[in-house]
């Protein structure tokens, strides 16, 4: 196989990996602070992508046509709205069920995911069909041998990497990050040290959901199409990536995301029938990985106490 094609596949894999990693980081953050899995996370991504699309259409209708301004507005709208939605979900559905069995939290977030997904399908105009997503990034490309590096892809990848670095800095260098890590490590002690537990939980959910919205926007800009089901798919894959990397570990989640994308890309290249069975293969990998390493390659921070 020639080098250009390899580079093409690598680029594609990296892009997928970045999206998976962003979603997986959200799962890992939530698990860190509350020990819960929010199954509606993927669908928050869908709603984020559709919010971006809606705000684009809104801007178009008032006659704005500068790509950069539109993109910025979409980014602000999607991230802001999803941060609010995430905090609301934590406040209304997850915190009240803290003392209930873990199954109830699992079920309520699963059902919430369905509500969000169906709401997009039913209430977004013609939401049942795939919607075209605008191309807002410069589509120029640089040819290096057989490989053409598209500028928009490069921008997306860089932006994704910057977001992850930013999150790292936020968690490791700021007081807020310290509080989040404190709550994740030991809720009781964090409370006694004067950390406002509820506020930190809400902020964490807001951050995680904004990351999902970013991934949704990335997904839209990369494929130029979104539909109401993308979140379900990215949610399951992102969750698996978070598990592979060991829930609760940010680095693990990022690693898991890229690992999963790598596996998928290799699968797509190596298996001749894989193009049609791409998603089947992805889910089979999820199941196989769960069978092989039920708690991930990097184990959870603490083993379950009996």
């Amino acid at each position, binding site marked *: 196989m020639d080098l250009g094609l390899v580079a093409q596949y690598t680029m594609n894999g990296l892009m997928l990996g970045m999206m998976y990693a962003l979603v997986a980081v959200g799962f890992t953050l939530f698990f860190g602070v509350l020990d819960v*899995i929010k*199954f509606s996370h993927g669908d928050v991504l869908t709603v984020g992508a559709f919010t971006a699309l809606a705000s684009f259409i809104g801007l178009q209708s008032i006659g704005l046509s500068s790509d950069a301004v539109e993109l910025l507005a979409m980014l602000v709208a999607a991230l802001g709205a999803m941060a609010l939605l995430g905090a609301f979900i934590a406040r209304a*559905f997850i915190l*009240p*069920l803290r003392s*209930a069995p*873990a*199954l*109830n939290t*699992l*079920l*309520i977030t*699963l*059902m*919430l995911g*369905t*509500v969000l997904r*169906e*709401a997009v399908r*039913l209430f977004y105009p013609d939401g049942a069909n795939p919607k075209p997503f605008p191309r807002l990034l410069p589509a120029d490309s640089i040819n290096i041998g057989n490989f053409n590096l598209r500028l928009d892809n490069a921008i997306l990848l860089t932006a994704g990497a910057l977001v992850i670095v930013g999150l790292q800095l936020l968690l490791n260098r700021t007081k807020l990050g310290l509080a989040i890590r404190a709550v994740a490590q030991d809720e009781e002690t964090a409370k006694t040290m004067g950390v406002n537990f509820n506020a930190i939980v809400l902020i964490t959910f807001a951050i995680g959901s904004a990351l999902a919205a970013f991934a949704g926007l990335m997904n839209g800009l990369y494929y130029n199409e979104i539909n109401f089901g993308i979140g*379900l*798919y990215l949610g*399951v894959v992102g*969750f*698996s990536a978070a*598990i592979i990397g060991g829930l609760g570990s940010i680095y693990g989640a990022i690693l898991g995301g890229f690992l999963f994308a790598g596996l998928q890309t290799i699968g797509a290249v190596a298996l001749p029938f894989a193009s*049609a*069975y791409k*998603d*089947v293969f992805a*889910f*089979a990998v*999820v*199941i*196989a990985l*769960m*069978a092989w390493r*039920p*708690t991930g390659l990097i184990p959870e921070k603490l083993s379950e106490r*009996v």
Partner: protein
Amino acid sequence: MAISGNDGGRSLLPGAAAVVLVTVFLIILLRVENQKAIIALLALGIGAVIAANRLGLLKPVAHSFSEREDALGLLAIVATFAVGAVFHEDHFVLLLVCTVVLYTVATLGLSIQFGYAGVLNFAGASFFGIGAYTAAVLSQHTAVPHLLVLLIGGLMAALIGSLLLLPVLRTRGHYAAVVTIAFALLFKTFLEVNDVLGGPQGLQVRGMTILGWSFNDNIEIGGVELSFYLNYFVMSMMIVVLAFVVVRRLERSWIGLNLDALRLDETAAGCFGLNIVRWKITAFLLGNSLIGVAGTLHGMVVGFVQPNNYTFADSLVLVSILLLGGIGNPWGVAVATVIVVIVPEKLQVIQEYRFFLYAALVMMVLLFRPEGLLPRPVRRYFPGWRP
């Protein structure tokens, strides 16, 4: 109130009255076509249940169901047949009733997994679909007797389910959930891209024939034309009664006790020498085969199968039924299935919104009444014994 095994008449009456009232209500609901009248009826029904609850009328009903379950079970069977008899020539209603009955079987299977053993399964509709596709393939390409097809459908669901055993056994809680969710998504995508199984268009299923008796011909007895769905109705009733008895016996037996122990505290159950792996496998496979049998017959009743009938959303509907009815209570499951299947079919306005509404409803249930509409009663170790 004196509670003993033989205060017969008094404890039977409230339950019997409830069954009769519900049956009459159902018959009226199924008969009415006018959408406004249906809304009024449903509002009336909800109002009546709330009022009965406020007036304390539901307690005696629950009591009589736990005291005289066998008699009331028989009455419920008679009542369902009465519904079938009233609508003996109405194809649509009979199809609906068959669907309710078969969904009840499927959710009974699910409640063995969720309710007793605590094994999560978010791919119920997929196993239902495995049964239906088995029916389609076998009835088109082979001459396997159709009663045997039912069994094979159940076996296939168990067999394919056993592929998931390793991950399901090795994982717990949310990890186990993601395994079955991934399977549900995999199953639907697989069906859509697989040309042998008809792709997105699906396959036709031949109707059932037993010993030359074709289920898809209308019946005529003494000049009265009966809908051919009545055949399927009787068949479904046989299966649901069997499934109900199996589930009820299982729950009361020492196996049920083991499963309960397993669900409540896996570690403690293991410490007391219960073979956790064995009981999890039993519950998972038994549940799947019940779902599979129901799916097989449902495929034959409907006459065609397609991937869109067996999506993840449908699996979640099955789970919703379980949660609405009260996890682990077969009667609750039956009532919830009636509500969940019939209401959107009768009330055309909400048909499109059903996944949305059920999910929202389940969220409300989880927030405000986590034990479901009819909570599972405390296990009774002796007749007449009260905790």
